[in-house]
Every structure is written in C-alpha cells, then in structure tokens.
C-alpha cells in the first residue's frame, strides 16, 4: 500500500510548485469571484446614487435619498489620503483597539482557564462575572469617563471590557467541553497535572480562544468607534476613525463620512485576517478544515 501511495503523493505535491505565487493567485477562482462581487456591488451603488441625475427627479427610487456615489467617495478619499490627520485617525483607533484587545487577552485567557479548571475559583468569581457580563460595554462609558482621569484611559477601559467578557466566556466554554476521553487517555499514559493542562487543556481550548478573539476583536472595533464619537471630540486625546466620521458629519461632508465608514471596514478586515493567520499558525491541525 505504502509503495503505491508515495510516488503518487510526491507527484501531486511537486506539480503546484512550478507555478509562481502570482500565477496561482491569478488562477484562484474564489479571489476572482470576490473581486467581481465587490465590483458589481459598487456598480449598483453608483447607478442607484446617480439615478436621479441620469433619469431625472421623477424617476427617483422612493426612499433613497442622498447617497454619495462611490466615485465621489473615491475622490474624497484621494483628497484625504495624503493628509496626516487621516492616518493619525487610523493610528489612534488601531492603538486603542490593540491595547484594549491585548489586555483583554492577557487577562481573559488565564482567567477563563482558571474558571474552567478550578472549582473554588469558579464558585467565587463566576457569579460576579455573570452579573457584570450582560452590561453592554457602552453602558460603561459615562461611569468610566467619570472614574478614569483621562479620556484615553476611559476609551481603553471600555474597549477592554468589550473583548474581555467574550474571550473569557469562550475560553471557559472551550476548556470545559474538552472531551473526557482525551483527559482519560492522557492520564492513563501517565500525564501529570501540568502535562494535562499544557498539552491537553490548552491546545484543546485554542480553537475556542481564537473564536473568542475573533468575536472580541469585532466588538472592540464597535466599542472604540462609539467611544471615540462620544468622548473623542473633547480637548484631550481625541482623534480616531470614530471622531473622523463624527467630524465629517459635523462638517457636512457626506463623502467623507462614507470614507470613514469604509476605512473602519478595512481596518476590521485587517484585524480579523491577522487573527485568522495567527490561528492557522497556532493550530496547524485546523488548517485542513
């Protein structure tokens, strides 16, 4: 059996190496479908936005009001691209998201694991955790604005909360649903408590950790944007993509609002891609699915 499989296998593996990366990318059907979908979406948007311009007011689609067409948005984007203020907004938002998210991971993963493996810890900390968890992060904004000395710290705190609860609940759930067969098998083979934790519970929880991270990252962006809109306009700190949108709204630049929104979309996409890549790196056995 082995003899037949191996040369065949080698042949299959050697073949794709002849094509360059670029060629492979150009032949990727999923990629082209994605590009086409976005192009079609933009086209429909453009037609919808320019409808009245082209066909007159009487042909306007009811309910559709002032939408800047993508071509105008693109033009507005080109205008802000060279401005350092725009990139500073990116930087500010990313900094807040990453710091809140990282602290939530650093605190949340051990906290969730401790809840999962230690009954006493769970008895003490789970009830207060469950009472605090349903409070939406944005409900914390007024309290944290008063409590924390600077706006920046309030935003960071609220961002942290956004990711923290999701990460903890995912880690806890993941660690507690590890199949008892794995634990029994490992114990039969002589695994110590530390081996069980580091070699079974931790890798067994990794998928849940990354699920929690992906969801938490999404919530973090939501929270940061909202917090920036609420508090970012003040004298200290400020900035960020949330404030960029708010500022455009105040200034009445419709195109720039959409530029801000799309920027957030791209930023969110970049963040979740990073988490996916990290997930693939940490969990090679999941790459096959």
């Amino acid at each position, binding site marked *: 059996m082995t003899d037949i499989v191996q040369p065949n296998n080698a042949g299959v593996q050697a073949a794709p190496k002849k094509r360059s990366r670029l060629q492979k990318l150009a032949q990727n059907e999923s990629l082209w479908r994605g590009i086409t979908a976005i192009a079609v979406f933009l086209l429909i948007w453009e037609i919808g936005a320019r409808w009245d311009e082209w066909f007159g007011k009487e042909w306007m689609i009811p309910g559709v009001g002032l939408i800047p067409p993508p071509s105008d948005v693109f033009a507005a984007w080109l205008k802000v691209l060279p401005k350092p203020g725009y990139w500073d907004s990116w930087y500010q938002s990313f900094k807040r998201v990453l710091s809140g998210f990282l602290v939530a991971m650093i605190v949340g993963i051990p906290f969730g694991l401790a809840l999962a493996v230690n009954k006493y810890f769970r008895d003490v900390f789970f009830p207060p955790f469950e009472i605090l968890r349903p409070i939406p992060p944005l409900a914390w904004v007024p309290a944290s604005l008063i409590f924390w000395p600077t706006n920046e710290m309030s935003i960071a705190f609220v961002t942290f909360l956004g990711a923290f609860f999701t990460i903890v609940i995912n880690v806890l759930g993941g660690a507690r649903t590890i199949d008892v*067969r794995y634990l*029994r*098998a*490992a114990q*039969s083979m002589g695994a110590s408590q530390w081996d069980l934790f580091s070699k079974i519970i931790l890798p067994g929880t990794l998928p849940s950790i990354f699920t929690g991270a992906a969801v938490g990252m999404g919530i973090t962006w939501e929270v940061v944007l909202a917090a920036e809109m609420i508090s970012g306009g003040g004298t200290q700190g400020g900035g960020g993509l949330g404030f960029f949108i708010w500022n455009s709204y105040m200034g009445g630049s419709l195109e720039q609002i959409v530029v801000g929104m799309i920027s957030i979309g791209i930023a969110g996409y970049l963040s979740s891609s990073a988490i996916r890549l990290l997930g693939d790196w940490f969990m090679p*056995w999941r790459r096959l*699915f």
Partner: protein
Amino acid sequence: MNVSVSNFDEAKRSMTVSQSRGALSIRNVTKIYDPEGVNVMAVKDCSMEIAAGEVCMIVGPSGCGKTTLLNAIAGFHSITYGEILLDGELLCGPGKPKAEQGAERMVVFQHGALFPWKTLAQNVAYGPMVQGRLSKSLALEKSRDMLAEAGLGSVTEKYPGEVSSGMSRRAEIVRALINDPKVLLLDEPYRAMDALTKSIMHESLLETYDRTKVTIFFITHDLEEAIFLGDKVHIVTTRPCQLKKTVNVDIARPRSYETQSSEEFRLLMEEVNEAVHEEAIKAFKAGERELA
C-alpha cells in the same frame, strides 16, 4: 524499558518472548451507580479469569454494563464490591474502590481519542515522553518506527483529522502499545466501521497480537468479530452484567479471513448466537417493562 536505538530490535524481540504477564482476575465485582438515590446495579457479582496473553472478548447487549467493567479495570470508575487483580496485585477492591490509572492498562476508546492537535507520530510519542522514559527525539523516533511497522509509515506526520478512521484507530493501538502495556482494553473500537475496513482492522490487530502477545480485553457487539479475534468469548447478561457463558475458541493462530468460512467457525457462531439471542430478548423485554 529504557531502549536506546542500538539495542532497539533486541528489546523488541525480548518483548515478544517474555510475555507471561497481564493476567487479570475479576472477582465478584459489583458496581452500583447511585444517581439521585436510585440504585442502578450495572454489574452484579461478576467474575472472570483472564490468563496472561489471552484475547478475551466480552459480548453482551447494549447498556449491560460491559463498559463499566472496563472503566473499573482502567481506573476511570470505582467498584462497589469485589476485587480486580492484575498479575496478583490488587488494582481495586475492599478499601480501595478505584484503581489508579496507569500505563500498564491502556484503553482504546469507542470513538477514538487521538489528540487532534498532535500528529500521529507526536500522539504515539506522548506516553513515553510524559512518563519521562524517553527524550522527545528518541520517543518520536521510536514512534515513527512503530507506526511504520503497523503500515502507517507514510502518514506519521499527518494529523488525525487528515487520515481515515481505520488509520487513526490503528495509530491509537500503536499509541497504546508503545507504553508496553500488560493489558490492552478495547471498548468497541471498530463499532462504526464498514465491513471492509473492519476486516482489515481485524487482521492488523491479529498481526499485532501475534507479535506482542499482549493480553487483550475487548468489548464488542459483533459476534463474528468476537470469535475471529478471541481465545475466549465471555457472554454477559443484560443489566446487571454477569458472566453467562464462556465459549472457548480453539481455532489455531495465526488466523486469516478464511477462518471465518470454516466449519468450526460456523459451529462456534451458532453456540454464541444462541446464548446472546436469549439475552437480547431478555434485554428487550426489560426495556418494555420499564416503558410500561
């Protein structure tokens, strides 16, 4: 068993020769589960003697308490009365209701329990590594050797999710064997497999057994499997689990798939079938009573 690479083959040979270990005595074992105060007797006064190097097949209706017995031997569950001994040493009994888990009694689970986050080679190397018997590189080397011996040489670096269920089940048996166990405890390991894969699994297990002569405690529903693999077939009653009948399988080893069409095989099938059928009817009626 600290094996360096140079005398590896020799150690393997000595392993196959000196195998007068792994005798299991199950004496008057009773197990009463007590969920919410309702006594459920899973095993009642069950006794069996399993000689060293014997392939002992346990056959009985579903839910009869066979797995309870296996869990008691493995040390996953406690027993209520009776005692279990391995090579004359008490595993569990009066004053020690639950056996310690140990690498001399390796379990191969019903649905497989290879760690999905480790490659087959890493899975097999896990035991010797956590026990500190071998260094990581030596354990991996030995693991690859043993996988190759079991016909899995081409998939040692694959994850369990990448190979077929048959391959992963064979790898799991290798993972058990690398710990040099006295007893291999198998809980319906080939249950969900199609007939073709199953027959390949059987031949592979027999081949492994002929090489290692490890004692095998094998739970199954499949009567043909029981006779084809076993030295003895213990038929147990429906809940509570008790030994009903022992059938000796005197078919010479090594056995091949042709064995299954022989006359003696057919006669044994009849004998086992009769006993099992009786229990199946009893189990069915008991189920009806519970529902009425």
